[in-house]
C-alpha cells in the first residue's frame, strides 16, 4: 500500500475542483436515470469533495448510529475502487415502494424483493454515473455485482472506505447528493483506490507529480 496521506497532502484546489467536476457530471447522469425511472424531477447538489480525518468518515451521514441502506459496487478496469450509493431509511422505503408498487418498511423486514429492487436501482444509477466517468476520462470501467447492506451508517462507511484502500489517516470523500420531489434522497460516494486517484488526476490533466 502506497502512502495515501502523502498523496492527499499534495492535492490542492485545482485537483479538488477537477474531481468535483467529474463527480458532478457522473451524478448528473445518475439523476437523469433516476428521474426517468421514477418519472419525478430529481435535483442534484453541488458535489462535496473533501479531505477528512479518517475518524470523521463514520459521521458523514449525520451520525454513526443512523440506520441506512447502502449499495456498494466495486469497480475494476483502468481505475479500481468502488461507488457507494446510500439512502436514508425513509428514502429507501419510498424508493422501493415506487418501484414495486406497495408500501414497505425495511426497518421491520427486508425481503428478497426489496433487496433486489434496491440493488437494481443502484446498478442502473452507478452505471450511468460511471458512464460519464469513462467517457470524460476516456477509460474503461467495469462495475462488479452490487452488494447491499442495511445497517448503521458508521459501520457501512467505515467498511467501504477501509476495504477499498483509503486507509491513511485522511480520506478523500467525494460525495454528491441527489434529491427528488418524492422524498427520495440519496448520496453517491466515489472511492478510488490510491493508484486510481493518481491515474484519474493525470487523465484530468491536473496530476500533482
Amino acid at each position, binding site marked *: 500500500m502506497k502512502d495515501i496521506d502523502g498523496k492527499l497532502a499534495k492535492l490542492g484546489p485545482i485537483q479538488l475542483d477537477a474531481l468535483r467536476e467529474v463527480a458532478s457530471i457522473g451524478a448528473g447522469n445518475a439523476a437523469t436515470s433516476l428521474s426517468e425511472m421514477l418519472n419525478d424531477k430529481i435535483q442534484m447538489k453541488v458535489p462535496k469533495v473533501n479531505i477528512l480525518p479518517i475518524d470523521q468518515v463514520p459521521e458523514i451521514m449525520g451520525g454513526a448510529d443512523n440506520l441506512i441502506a447502502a449499495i456498494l459496487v466495486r469497480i475494476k478496469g483502468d481505475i479500481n475502487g468502488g461507488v457507494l450509493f446510500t439512502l436514508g431509511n425513509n428514502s429507501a422505503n419510498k424508493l422501493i415502494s415506487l418501484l414495486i408498487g406497495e408500501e414497505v418498511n425495511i426497518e421491520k423486514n427486508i425481503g428478497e424483493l426489496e433487496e433486489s429492487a434496491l440493488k437494481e436501482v443502484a446498478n442502473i444509477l452507478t452505471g450511468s454515473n460511471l458512464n460519464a466517468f469513462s467517457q470524460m476520462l476516456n477509460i474503461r470501467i467495469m462495475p462488479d455485482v452490487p452488494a447491499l*447492506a442495511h445497517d448503521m451508517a*458508521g459501520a457501512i462507511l467505515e467498511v467501504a472506505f477501509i476495504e477499498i484502500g483509503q486507509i491513511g489517516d485522511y480520506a478523500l470523500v467525494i460525495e454528491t447528493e441527489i434529491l427528488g420531489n418524492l422524498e427520495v434522497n440519496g448520496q453517491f460516494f466515489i472511492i478510488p483506490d490510491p493508484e486510481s486517484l493518481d491515474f484519474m488526476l493525470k487523465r484530468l490533466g491536473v496530476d500533482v507529480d
Partner: protein
Amino acid sequence: MLISNKIRVRMADLKVGKENDVLITSGLGSCVGLTLYDSSNKIGGMAHIMLPEFPSNRKQGKPEKYADTAIDILIEELRKVGANIRNLEAKMAGGAQMFNFSTSNDRIRIGVRNIEAVETILKRKRIPIIGAEVGENYGRTMELYNNTGEVIIKTVKQDDRIL
C-alpha cells in the same frame, strides 16, 4: 445514584475512564472495539481498532489505528490512571463483513484479520478475553460501564447483548 459520564471513542481512537464513566464507540463494522477492564479498581479503557498491524514501511501514522500499537498504548494509559495491569480482562466486538460479495476476495476480509490480530496480541500479553461478539455481517455499537465492567452490544436488528 451515580451520574454517568459518557465518553465517545471515535474510529482509530482510544480512551480510558474511571468508575462513573461509560465508554461508547458507535458503528463498528470491520473494525474491532476492544475493552480492557480492571474490576478491582473499576478502571477501564476502550479502543476502536481499524487494522491489524502498524505498517513497517511507514514512519508516521496514527498508532491508535492498528491493533498492535493501539493495545500497547491502551495498557499504558490504563496504568497511568491507576489500573493494575495484572487484573485486566478483555472484551471485544466487531470485525464484521458488512457487504457480501459473490466474488469475495479473501485479501479483503479485514474484519477477520482484525479479530485474529487482537486475539493473538492479547494471548501474548496474557490478558484473558472474557467476552466477545464478533464476525457476522452487521454493525455494532459497544458500551463499557466502568462501575460494573459490563459491556453492552447494540445492533439495529437484534436485541442488545450483554458481555
